[in-house]
């Protein structure tokens, strides 16, 4: 089962909920954690994964961008006309590329009548993988031994500074998800546009984290529109409850959206978070609350494809 954690507004507590949900579940389910906030990944600051150093565990995410062979280019300008992203400019009898604007669609190379365009890989980010709770890098996941202590599989991505295109890096992180018979928890970026859609799409359930303020409510409404558009079942976690007003709760009632959990505003939580603490370790009652949330989600998501398989 894939559970994504999203929010319209930034800083409402997505990472807090995602990280602590993973920690609350690790003793009962196989957990993979995917940090898809590739512009500003933060989950590793709380989970302290041991990242694997082998080549298969850390990979560069690249886009195929055009390389023009000037000796073959006739300056016909078809490549510039084909490019929907203005990444090729044609003037005189030359073509100039702007790789930072290229989406890697391959249109220019495909339609160049002179065969003057080939594609080269341009790195836009990296994906790293590792384990939380593994004794050392390179050691296989503890959960592989039946009945042994389970660890959390950890994968995150990071776009290179100055790179505008986050979605391909998000997709590279997502491609590592192996839900088999456990749970994949996805920490998504804030907002409602393409990097968020790339993170949330295809998940079985989405947790929207908000705060009880007019900002939180406004951005929750946008996020609700997004998950409805994507057709994903969802519920809301109200973080810092008690700090603002009660309009978020009223909105959820009116829209029939389940409020899965309210986490009260508490300076002790804020202090633990500030230092990179794991709330479920510092405040065990929160672990119970998150396991309760998990049971609600499991009930709401219905039987999963992999379970239906076993039933048959």
């Amino acid at each position, binding site marked *: 089962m894939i559970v994504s954690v999203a929010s*319209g*507004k*930034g*800083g*409402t507590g997505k*990472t807090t909920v995602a990280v602590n949900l993973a920690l609350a579940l690790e003793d009962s389910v196989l957990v993979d954690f995917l940090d898809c*906030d590739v*512009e*500003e990944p*933060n989950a590793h*600051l*709380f989970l302290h994964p041991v990242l694997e150093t082998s080549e298969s565990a850390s990979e560069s995410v690249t886009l195929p961008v055009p390389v023009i062979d000037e000796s073959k280019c006739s300056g016909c300008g078809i490549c510039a006309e*084909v490019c*929907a*992203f203005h990444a090729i400019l044609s003037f005189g009898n030359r073509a100039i590329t702007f790789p930072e604007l290229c*989406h*890697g*669609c*391959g*249109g220019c190379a*495909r*339609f160049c009548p002179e065969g003057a365009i080939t594609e080269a890989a341009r790195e836009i980010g990296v994906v790293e993988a590792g384990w939380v709770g593994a004794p050392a890098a390179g050691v296989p996941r503890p959960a592989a031994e039946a009945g042994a202590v389970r660890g959390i599989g950890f994968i995150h991505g990071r*776009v290179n*500074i*100055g*790179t*505008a*295109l*986050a979605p391909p890096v998000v997709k590279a992180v997502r491609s590592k998800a192996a839900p088999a018979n456990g749970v994949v928890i996805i920490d998504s*970026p*804030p*907002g*409602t*546009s*393409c*990097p*968020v*859609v790339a993170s949330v*799409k295809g998940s079985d359930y989405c947790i929207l984290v908000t705060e009880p*303020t*007019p*900002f939180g409510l*406004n*951005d929750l409404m*946008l996020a609700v*529109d*997004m998950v409805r*558009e*994507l057709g994903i079942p969802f519920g809301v976690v109200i973080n810092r409850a008690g*700090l*603002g*007003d009660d309009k978020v709760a009223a909105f959820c009632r009116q829209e029939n959206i389940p409020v899965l959990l309210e986490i009260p505003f508490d*300076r002790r939580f*804020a*202090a633990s*978070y*500030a*230092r*990179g603490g794991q709330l479920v370790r510092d405040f065990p009652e929160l672990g119970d609350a998150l396991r309760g949330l998990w049971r609600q989600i499991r009930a709401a998501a219905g039987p999963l494809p992999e379970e239906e398989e076993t039933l048959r």
Partner: protein
Amino acid sequence: MKELLVMSGKGGTGKTSIVGAFAVLADCKVLADCDVDAADLHLLLSPTVRIAEEFRAGQQAVLDPAKCVGAGKCSASAVCAEACRFGAIGLPSQAGSGAGSALGAGLPHIDPVSCEGCGVCARTCPHGAISMEDVVSGHWFVSDTAYGPMVHARLGVAQENSGKLVTQVRREARSIAEKQGLGYIITDGPPGIGCPVISSMSGVDLALIVTEPTVAGTHDMQRAVELARHFGVKPAVCINKYDLDEAGAKQIEQYCSSEGVQIAGKVPFDEEVVGAVVRGVPVVTRDGSHRAEGKAAQAIRRLWANVESELAS
């Protein structure tokens, strides 16, 4: 004319509350909300919309079922799906049975969310069955507020092109500032360091990075500083809620001093900031029963004074 971008890397550090306060404190300015996929500044400034425009950017592939011969009969076995690099074209057989089976007779399906509008499928289709149509990917607005003109926008649900919408908002703000002879453009930036942030940043005079003393806030601020430098924009830092972890705030100060980044201000945690958001007014507003000014409001006044002199230099 000077352009100030208020940004953060990490979301929720207080950008919008600070921009809302600057709206009150700065003379002769236009405000621009460039957080186009989760805009909030209007909730503090209560704008009256004067102009509302559709924003068209990018295109989307649309299949004409009358012209498409179907995946199984296509002269080159559904060339559109083979050509699409974004996995936006699904074939009928893939929905039901397993891989390797013959293509069904049905039509390919174009997923509008995955389509990036490159147009390769339309150019490749041997039957001319795919056309590219303009997409309304959002709206932008020019409004009046009690504090001056404001340009803001709303990106459509699950839409792309937030960077281009940001560029449109900034273009409009600049034109208003030029026409009215305004001294400042004050921009509320989006979180992150990706496409809309880069579009918000090009050519501004100062990037004020609002951070908080948490491990995540500090980590993200460092990436924001690197981004500003990458684009040749001068960064300055504001430590918001600095008293929630004074040791963490010290670390931010040390980082900034070692990197030569100015700390433009430190703002204490103050529930009055949340109170102002709930009332829907900037935190430096004195209204009704809120005559006394809290410690955060006072700190933000000092922050603006520093930012103003930095912009003047």
